[in-house]
């Protein structure tokens, strides 16, 4: 079955091409169905490869195939090849599965949009790029996918680009990503320079068997790779783009910024784990410290957000921080496990939020929600499952994966564990806040009927409009089916890696050949693990209960918790803008001056010099015969003089 690997990215590529050619003609909703079918085809191919791989023994599960030589350039030879091993197939499975569900959802969500088919063109291109990223057998293919998902992210965030705010959000995402890409590229250069190949198998065999990398080089590579990962996976300080990226349509947020693109950084570091093992200890420490800081930072910011999507955005940043804590501590399996469960429940949460927004007619401010459970039962039900998963309530999947990450933190540093626990409690708190404000409590939207009318600029809405504001409705089946599917996955995905005994740790056994024995084993007794789990459950419960005190029972004033500085995300974004606008701009002006004066001046100066020289030399072409005759005579004298000098005496 392995030779079907090339089919996996080909399906979305085919979908992209077909939609590019015929999308406008297909129109709504056929274009969407074509896209969905393609991604489903990709998912089925992945499933085939997976089943084939599962039947083999652990050593045989790594399969490489090179389609053709893409860049033959002297010493560098890069082929277009695929690497199908447990890690890449795992990623491909959940990427294609979640993407297929989101494509289906988007058919319903983007109903009525004039650029319907364009949306699906970008979505399919995105899935293709992401699959190239995970399935590539060398760093350059991964980078190709890396850049591709960055570009598609830009396209999709600024999809409604008539509003300049959306366009600049897209730009911000792309530019911030680019800063990270620089790190990735430097890492590639270093690896190529030291090892001579960009292929994963070559790199790993050189590093493990031949010790080709010194510790300094490996550390430099790891730091550069982490910069790239931080850009893509929204870690501090390159997280700035993710909250702004909520300007894109909700399926985009679900797909890109919850389930797939933002996980590329974690994937990259997990893939390069042999290099991480060669590097100095402080580089791994750097990774988990930044991850921890980001987790706390973002969780605190999420507490005070009023836009439902922004809460989920900061939540994503925070959860990615959790994953990096696991990577930095050396427990890659925990990171991948949390990545998978996060993909399920975060996509579910985003799609549910989209359903709510759709039902409330594009209203995103949670202060205008309330008691929507009756109006949208399916949305509410699935959303609650997602909420329980992310909060870490057993037996939902989030509990198991988060517990693994907490165990990783405990293994690394006890203080880190305490801080991460606080972040987990905050996670439970803000998610509960979101759920209570949206689905429970008092109806705040009926009250605002008069205010809505005042805000109408043109005319008061007609009769049926009034009814719509009063009646938020459940979404069509096309939209709630994916919700249900994802809810099922979010609820049950915990069985992938139950910690009870070695036999139930399927994910760990599955990922073994990819990790080259670099997985850190936790030094804790079983009773300690039970204790930590119980503490985690208690913490989650505290979070939920305190949120209910504040928002349901109204015992504590929310304003004490929702501090303005938290709402502004610690003013970091603002300070970056101020720096770039102020001193940053001065630096740029100096660089521009240098470029214009020195570099352009040298180039233009060479041209001007030639021109001047030419003009002066032109004076010898007088057109007068006698000056030419003079020249000839002088030439004759020169020749004669030469001959005279050669006469021997």
């Amino acid at each position, binding site marked *: 079955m392995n030779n079907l690997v090339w089919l996996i990215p080909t399906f979305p590529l085919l979908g992209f091409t077909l939609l590019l050619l015929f999308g406008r003609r297909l129109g709504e909703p056929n274009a969407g169905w074509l896209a969905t079918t393609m991604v489903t085809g990709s998912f089925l191919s992945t499933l085939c490869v997976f089943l084939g791989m599962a039947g083999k023994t652990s050593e045989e599960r790594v399969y490489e195939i090179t389609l053709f030589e893409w860049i033959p350039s002297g010493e560098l030879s890069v082929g277009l090849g695929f690497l199908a091993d447990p890690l890449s197939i795992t990623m491909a499975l959940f990427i294609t599965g979640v993407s297929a569900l989101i494509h289906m959802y988007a058919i319903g969500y983007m109903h009525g949009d004039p650029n319907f088919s364009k949306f699906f063109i970008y979505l399919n291109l995105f899935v293709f790029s992401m699959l190239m990223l995970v399935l590539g057998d060398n760093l350059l293919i991964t980078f190709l996918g890396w850049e591709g998902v960055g570009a598609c992210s830009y396209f999709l965030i600024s999809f409604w680009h008539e509003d300049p705010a959306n366009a600049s959000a897209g730009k911000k995402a792309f530019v911030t990503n680019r800063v990270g890409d620089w790190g990735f590229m430097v890492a590639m250069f270093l690896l190529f320079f030291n090892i001579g190949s960009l292929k994963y198998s070559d790199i790993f065999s050189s590093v493990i068997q031949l010790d080709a990398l010194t510790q300094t080089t490996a550390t430099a590579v790891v730091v550069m790779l982490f910069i790239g990962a931080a850009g893509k996976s929204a870690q501090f300080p390159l997280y700035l783009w993710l909250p702004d990226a909520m300007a894109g349509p909700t399926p985009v947020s679900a797909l890109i910024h919850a389930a797939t693109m933002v996980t590329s950084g974690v994937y990259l570091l997990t893939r390069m784990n042999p290099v991480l093992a060669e590097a100095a200890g402080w580089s791994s420490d750097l990774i988990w410290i930044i991850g921890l800081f980001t987790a706390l930072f973002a969780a605190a910011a999420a507490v005070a957000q009023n836009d439902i999507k922004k809460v989920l955005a900061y939540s994503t940043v925070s959860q990615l921080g959790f994953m990096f804590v696991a990577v930095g501590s050396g427990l890659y399996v925990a990171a991948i496990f949390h990545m998978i469960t996060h993909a399920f429940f975060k996509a579910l949460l985003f799609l549910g939020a989209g359903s709510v927004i759709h039902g409330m007619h594009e209203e995103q401010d949670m202060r205008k929600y309330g008691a929507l459970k009756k109006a949208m039962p399916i949305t509410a039900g699935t959303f609650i499952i997602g909420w329980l998963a992310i909060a870490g309530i057993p037996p939902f999947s989030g509990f198991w994966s988060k517990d693994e990450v907490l165990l990783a933190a405990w293994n690394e540093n006890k203080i880190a564990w305490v801080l991460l626990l606080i972040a987990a409690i905050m996670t439970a708190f803000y998610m509960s806040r979101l759920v209570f404000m949206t689905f429970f409590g008092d109806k705040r939207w009926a009250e605002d009927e008069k205010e809505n009318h005042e805000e109408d600029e043109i005319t008061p809405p007609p009769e049926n409009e009034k009814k719509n504001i009063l009646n938020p409705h459940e979404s069509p089946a096309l939209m709630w089916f994916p919700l249900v599917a994802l809810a099922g996955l979010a609820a049950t995905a915990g069985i992938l890696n139950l910690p009870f005994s070695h036999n139930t740790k399927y994910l760990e056994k599955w990922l073994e050949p990819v990790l080259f024995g670099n997985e850190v084993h936790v030094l804790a007794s079983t009773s300690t693990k039970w204790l930590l789990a119980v503490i985690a459950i208690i913490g989650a419960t505290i979070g939920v209960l305190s949120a209910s005190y504040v928002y349901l029972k109204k015992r504590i004033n929310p304003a004490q918790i929702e501090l303005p500085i938290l709402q502004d995300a610690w003013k970091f974004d603002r300070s970056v803008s101020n720096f770039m606008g102020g001193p940053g701009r001065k630096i740029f002006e100096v660089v521009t001056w240098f470029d214009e004066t020195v570099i352009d001046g040298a180039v233009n100066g060479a041209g001007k010099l030639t021109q001047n020289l030419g003009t002066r030399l032109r004076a010898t072409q*007088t057109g007068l015969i006698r000056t030419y005759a003079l020249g000839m005579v002088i030439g004759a004298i020169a020749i004669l003089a030469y*001959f005279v000098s050669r*006469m021997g005496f």
Partner: protein
Amino acid sequence: MEAVTFFIAALIAVAGACGVVFLKNPVHAALSLVATLFGVAIHFINLEAYFLAAVQVIVYAGAIVILFLFVIMLLGVDRAEDIQSDPIIGQRQLALLATAGLLILGIFIALAFSGEVTGVPPIEAQQSTFDGGLAIDSGSISKGVPPEQNIKEIGRALFSTRYVFALEITALLLTIGVVGAVVLTRRSKSELEPIPVVEPPALMRNSEGEIELALNEDEQSPIEETIDPPVEDLPNEEVEVNGE
């Protein structure tokens, strides 16, 4: 005797040459050119190139210089030329320098001649041109032979395999020359167009005799002022020119 002849003829030739260079009137210059040609012809006789001397006088002095005089008369350039100053800056000084240099070098090389020349060794490879087929050289010059022997030898050599092709080519050249002359001087039926007037190059003095060294091209051409209108009191040819 040879020495006396040499020096007298040399004197004539050099005097004629200086006359060509320094005389203002073109007709006078042509006549001194004739003197030079005669002097060179005497030298040819001294060198036992009898045929050549005759040809020199007949062709050069008798035809080419006459041609010069025809053109001088036709164009009416028999006015004296202003030889005082030179419009081109520095031309005269440089010409003086160049001439001096050339003279020194030339005399130097000439006097350093010691009998060895590059090329075919003269005496050994000589064979008579009476052979049909390939002659190695053109023939020998015997000393003290009468002139008709010289002409005979030249005739034979010229029509030998070595030189006959060149001879025919020169005949062709002369024909082309004649045709070309007729074509070039043909009058077109339409009005003759004036010679285009362009601004003089930077090296020239303008009509006041001052130097303008500007390198830009937008200045008024001073030459236009010095163009005389076509003269009216010359023979018929000129009137026709004016009338068209």
